[in-house]
C-alpha cells in the first residue's frame, strides 16, 4: 500500500521564490534534488544575513542614535562616519567577554534558551515577501506559520528565566510569558480580520490583494492597504505587537528598575548577544508582519525592483516607532498590562473580527 500523498489545498505558484531564482542564475537546478537543496540553502543564507546585518545596524548604532536624539544628546560619534564602526567594536567587545554561568543554572535549558530565542525570530522571516524577489518560501499557511514561529520565542524566554535559577530571571520569564500569551490572542484575531479581506493565509496573496486601488485620488491611486481599509485593526495590531515584542510601554519583562534585566540577568558574553539579537530580530519580525499584512508589503511607487527598499523603509519605520515610544511612554504596571490585554484588547479584537466579517458580508 505504498501510495503517494497528493496535497489537496493548492497554492498559487506564480510567485517565483528566491531559491528558484538562485537555481536559475547559478544553474544549480540542473543537479536535481541536491541542487535544489543547495539553492535553498544559499537563499536562506542571504535572507538570514540580511536580517543579521539589519539588527547589527540597529542594536549598537541606530538605537543609541535615536535615543540620543530624543534625549537631546550626541551618541556614538567617534569611530568612523557617524560612529558607524561602533557596530564592529561592540560585537567584538561582547563576543570577547568572559562567559559566566551561575552555579545552580539548569544547564541544557540555560544553553538552549538563547539559541531558541534567536533562531525562532529568524525563522519567521522565511515567509515574508520582501520584494525584489527576496521571498524565501510561500506556503499556503504563511500567516499561521509566522504567528506560530513568533510564539516559540516565549518558550525560549521562559527557559532562560527558569534555567538561570535567579529570582529576577524567574519573574522576568514569567512576566514575559504572561505578557506574550495575554497579547497573542488579540494579535492573531486581529490578523484574522485581515485574512477575511484576503481570503487566504498565503503571504503573497495577501500582498497582492492590497495592490488593488482603494480610492483614486487625482493622479495617484490610494492603494487598498489594509492599514487604510481597516485602521482600527491596524492600531489594535500595532499595540498588541508592541506587547508581543516586549517594548515600551510593555517592557516589564526586563524592567531594569524592578528586576534588573529580567530573564537575561544571568546571561553574559555570546549568550547575551544572542538574546539581544533575538529581541531585535523580533522587533523587525513584528515590523515585517505589520508591513506585509497592513502596509502592502514591498509595494510602493517606482519599479518593482525597488520593493526591497520600500519594505525596509516600512520595517524601519516601525522600529523607529518602537524606539520613539521607548523614550516617550512610561512603563505600565504588570496588573495594568494584564487587564489591558484580557479585558480590553481581547474583547476589542473579537469585536473587530466580527464587525469586519459582518461588513464584508453585507457589502458583497
Amino acid at each position, binding site marked *: *500500500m*505504498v*501510495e*503517494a*500523498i*497528493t*496535497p*489537496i489545498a493548492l497554492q498559487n505558484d506564480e510567485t517565483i521564490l528566491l531559491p528558484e531564482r538562485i537555481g536559475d542564475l547559478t544553474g544549480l537546478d540542473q543537479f536535481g534534488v541536491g541542487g535544489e537543496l543547495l539553492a535553498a540553502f544559499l537563499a536562506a543564507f542571504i535572507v538570514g544575513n540580511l536580517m543579521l546585518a539589519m539588527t547589527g545596524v540597529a542594536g549598537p548604532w541606530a538605537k543609541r542614535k535615536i535615543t540620543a536624539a530624543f534625549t537631546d544628546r550626541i551618541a556614538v560619534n567617534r569611530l568612523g562616519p557617524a560612529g558607524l564602526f561602533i557596530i564592529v567594536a561592540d560585537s567584538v567587545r561582547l563576543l570577547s567577554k568572559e562567559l559566566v554561568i551561575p552555579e545552580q543554572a539548569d544547564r541544557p535549558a540555560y544553553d538552549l534558551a538563547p539559541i531558541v530565542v534567536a533562531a525562532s525570530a529568524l525563522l519567521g522571516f522565511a515567509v515574508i515577501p520582501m520584494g525584489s524577489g527576496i521571498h524565501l518560501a510561500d506556503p499556503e499557511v504563511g500567516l499561521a506559520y509566522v504567528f506560530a514561529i513568533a510564539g516559540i520565542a516565549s518558550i525560549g524566554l521562559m527557559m532562560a528565566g527558569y534555567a538561570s535559577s535567579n529570582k529576577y530571571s524567574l519573574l522576568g520569564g514569567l512576566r514575559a510569558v504572561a505578557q506574550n500569551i495575554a497579547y497573542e490572542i488579540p494579535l492573531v484575531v486581529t490578523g484574522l480580520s485581515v485574512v477575511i479581506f484576503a481570503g487566504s493565509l498565503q503571504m503573497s496573496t495577501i500582498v497582492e490583494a492590497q495592490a488593488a486601488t482603494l480610492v483614486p485620488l487625482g493622479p495617484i491611486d490610494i492603494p487598498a492597504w489594509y492599514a487604510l481599509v481597516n485602521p482600527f485593526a491596524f492600531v489594535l495590531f500595532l499595540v498588541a505587537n508592541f506587547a508581543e515584542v516586549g517594548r515600551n510601554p510593555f517592557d516589564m519583562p526586563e524592567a531594569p528598575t524592578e528586576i534588573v534585566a529580567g530573564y537575561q540577568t544571568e546571561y553574559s558574553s555570546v549568550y547575551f548577544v544572542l538574546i539581544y539579537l533575538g529581541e531585535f530580530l523580533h522587533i523587525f519580525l513584528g515590523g515585517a508582519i505589520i508591513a506585509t499584512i497592513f502596509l502592502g508589503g514591498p509595494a510602493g511607487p517606482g519599479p518593482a525592483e525597488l520593493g526591497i527598499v520600500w519594505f525596509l523603509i516600512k520595517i524601519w519605520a516601525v522600529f523607529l516607532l518602537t524606539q520613539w515610544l521607548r523614550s516617550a511612554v512610561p512603563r505600565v504596571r504588570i496588573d495594568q498590562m494584564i487587564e489591558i490585554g484580557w479585558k480590553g484588547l481581547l474583547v476589542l479584537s473579537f469585536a473587530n473580527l466580527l464587525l469586519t466579517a459582518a461588513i464584508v458580508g453585507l457589502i458583497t
Partner: protein
Amino acid sequence: MSIGIEYYVLLSMGLFCIGLFGVLTRRNALMFLMSVELMLNAANINLIAFAFYHGNLTGQVFALFTMALAAAEVAVGLGIILVLYRNFRDVDVTVPTTMRW
C-alpha cells in the same frame, strides 16, 4: 516529493507507544499528562495523513477538534493537579491513597 502512508502510520504508532510507555511508567502527574498528549497527537498524525491519503478533509477537521479538546482536557487536568498539590503537597500520582486502590 511523496512519502508512503505506512511511514506516517509507523510514526504515529511509535509516538503512541512512547506515550503509552510514559503513562505506564511515570509517577509524576504532569509527565502523565504530557504522555497522554503524545498519544493524542499520534492520533492527529494518523488523521491528517489518512486525510491526505483518502483525499477527503474529514480527518483534518477532526484533527482540529482533537487539538481543541486536548487543550481543554489539559486545562481541566492542570486544575485538578493544582488542587492535588494543595492537598497533598505533591504531584506524584501514587501519593494520594486516602481510599484503598
